[in-house]
């Protein structure tokens, strides 16, 4: 059985359609990534899956429960770490966690043991009686994760968990996420960072309320780039109008990438002629496409 099953889910606010007939499933123990620009419908989908928002249409099953069983039965089975900072910064770490366990009606003995274990798990080495206000950003994030895990949920929803956190803290946080997945928990995560998306088992790309692609990162790359992806650099100045002529002659796309350009070739013979014409002024390397390339391509494809 899947951890999350969504079919034909639609959410409308008045006349605005935030989520438009999306269908997907997430398997147990999977790390499922949810990508897309702001306003693409990621957070709205998560709010439905965590029981905060009722779907307008469509069917949703989370941890074997549906909205027909009541939003609260869903809430009790999932952990949710919101995009917004949701700890009380005028309470201490342990007061915050005590409040959350009270709210979730975890017996005191159980919660004390779990708080201990989870704080050790996230490597929290600060004093639990420190005010949350005084903690550095990464540590706040760790405590938020502990709060989301207190009731031992089967599925954990993380909505941009690493926004505004240092790179070191980010990689540590992802180590924790992988650890959770190994324990058999299903992780549902949204992110803006492409390197984080690479860590996911599968990713879904949302755009304007719809899912425009859904697969593992490797498979997405293979599908989006059947032809090789080349990185070119003009060593002796670029001739005027080269991009236009290249696009006419045999490249599917030319995307600037820092000082370089990424070129996707679809006509090998034409490309070879182009390189021949500019020998000595051009260096060419074959590269593996990054997820970012994939998304630029997918989004352009969806726009067309």
């Amino acid at each position, binding site marked *: 059985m899947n951890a999350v099953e969504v079919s034909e889910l639609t959410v409308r606010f008045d006349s605005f359609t935030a989520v438009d007939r999306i269908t997907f499933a997430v398997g147990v123990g999977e790390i499922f990534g949810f990508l897309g620009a702001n306003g693409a419908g990621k957070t709205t989908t998560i709010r439905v899956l965590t029981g905060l928002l009722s779907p307008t249409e469509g069917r949703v099953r989370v941890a074997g429960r549906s909205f027909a069983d009541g939003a*609260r039965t869903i809430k009790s089975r999932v952990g*949710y770490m919101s995009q917004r*900072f*949701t700890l009380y910064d005028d309470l201490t770490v342990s007061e915050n966690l*005590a*409040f*959350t366990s009270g*709210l979730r009606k975890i017996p005191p003995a159980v919660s004390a043991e779990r708080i201990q274990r989870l704080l050790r798990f996230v490597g929290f080495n600060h004093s639990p009686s420190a005010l949350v206000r005084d903690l550095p950003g990464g540590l706040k994030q760790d405590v938020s994760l502990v*709060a989301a895990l207190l009731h031992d949920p089967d599925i954990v929803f993380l909505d941009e968990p690493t926004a505004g956190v240092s790179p070191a803290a980010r990689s540590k946080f992802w180590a924790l996420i992988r650890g959770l997945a190994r324990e058999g928990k299903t992780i549902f995560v949204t992110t803006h960072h492409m390197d984080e998306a690479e860590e996911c088992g599968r990713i879904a790309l949302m755009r304007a309320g719809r899912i425009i692609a859904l697969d593992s990162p490797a498979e997405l790359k293979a599908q989006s780039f059947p032809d090789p992806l080349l990185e070119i650099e003009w060593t002796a100045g670029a001739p005027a109008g080269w991009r236009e002529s290249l696009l006419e002659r045999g490249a599917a796309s030319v995307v600037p990438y820092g000082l370089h350009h990424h070129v996707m070739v679809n006509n090998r013979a034409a490309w070879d002629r182009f390189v021949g014409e500019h020998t000595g002024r051009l260096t060419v390397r074959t590269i593996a496409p990054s997820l970012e390339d994939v998304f630029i391509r997918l989004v352009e494809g969806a726009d067309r």
Partner: protein
Amino acid sequence: MNPALLAFLKKEFIQALRDKRMRLILFVVPVVQMMVFGLALSNEIKNVRLAVQAVPNDRLAHKIGERAAESGWFHLVPADDAEPFELIRTGRADAVLVAPPGGLTRALARQSGEAQVLVDATNAIKARVIENYLNAVLYRVLRDENPTRAPEAAVTFDVRVLYNPTLETSAYLVPGVMGLILCLVTILLSSMSMAREREMGTFETLIAAPVAPWELFLGKTMPFMILGLADVPLMIALGVGGFHVPLRGPLWALFLAAAVFVGTTVFIGTLISTFAKNQQQAMMGSFLFLFPAILLSGVMAPLENIPAAVVPLSWLNPLRFFVSLTRQVMLKGTIGPFYWTNLAALGLLGAAAATASVQRFRRTL
């Protein structure tokens, strides 16, 4: 006890009591304010500045002035030779007694004495009282002057004032001020509560948890009721111990009224809170409730005079009922139909506020 409610109680208490300035606001400011208002405020008009303008040998006119000063209501200010109108306009005197030309003493000998009194009527209430004071002084002077032909009135009234025979201001004001302060504290606490959670983002924590709306609602109201009620014994002790306000009725009646009142104000505060998008709006909302509530409470002005069109507005004011109840219990002491109807009205208001805020609460969840 329900663990979610217990968690809320702990959390709200910690948040309200950790900050030293909040503790000050909750427990010190109410007591200090009650002391200041209890000591300072008085309805009695005293220290009226009276000038007597009469020729030096006008014995009777000056005697009225002396008697007025002796009465304790007035003190004399020199009239100089200024125009009486100017004395009042410039604020040097509140009232000027102007003897008739030739003097009041001579006029009285001709049986037709009439003196003019100019009174500053910028304060209309005070002006009327000054007039009555001066007439009483004149009556006494005439009786002393002429014991045989005392201007005895044909009809006399024996006036007895019940419950507060010495017209002690604090006895009637302190129960009212208690209500004002209690209202202020509870409204301020509860109107911010939800607005703050929403602004800080912690609202998400609350709604992501599998708690029932009623648990959330009680969790966000009960702590403030308890904090508000904690002020009640403090204020009663100060009123009875410090200001010697009588407590003629039973204590339970006072606490029952306070409990219903605090419940009502907390529900109203929560209702304000559900409408507010941020703390600033919550604050403006609570000001817009508090200011009319205070003016319509019966502490600032008699309730009997409210124009008919506004009377229904005063029925929406929990403070009005609570002030009536505290005065009833403390000064009159009888727990009869008056007590129960006022309490029922307060309870009804509380129930309506609770229903409305639960409705709004559900919609915002």
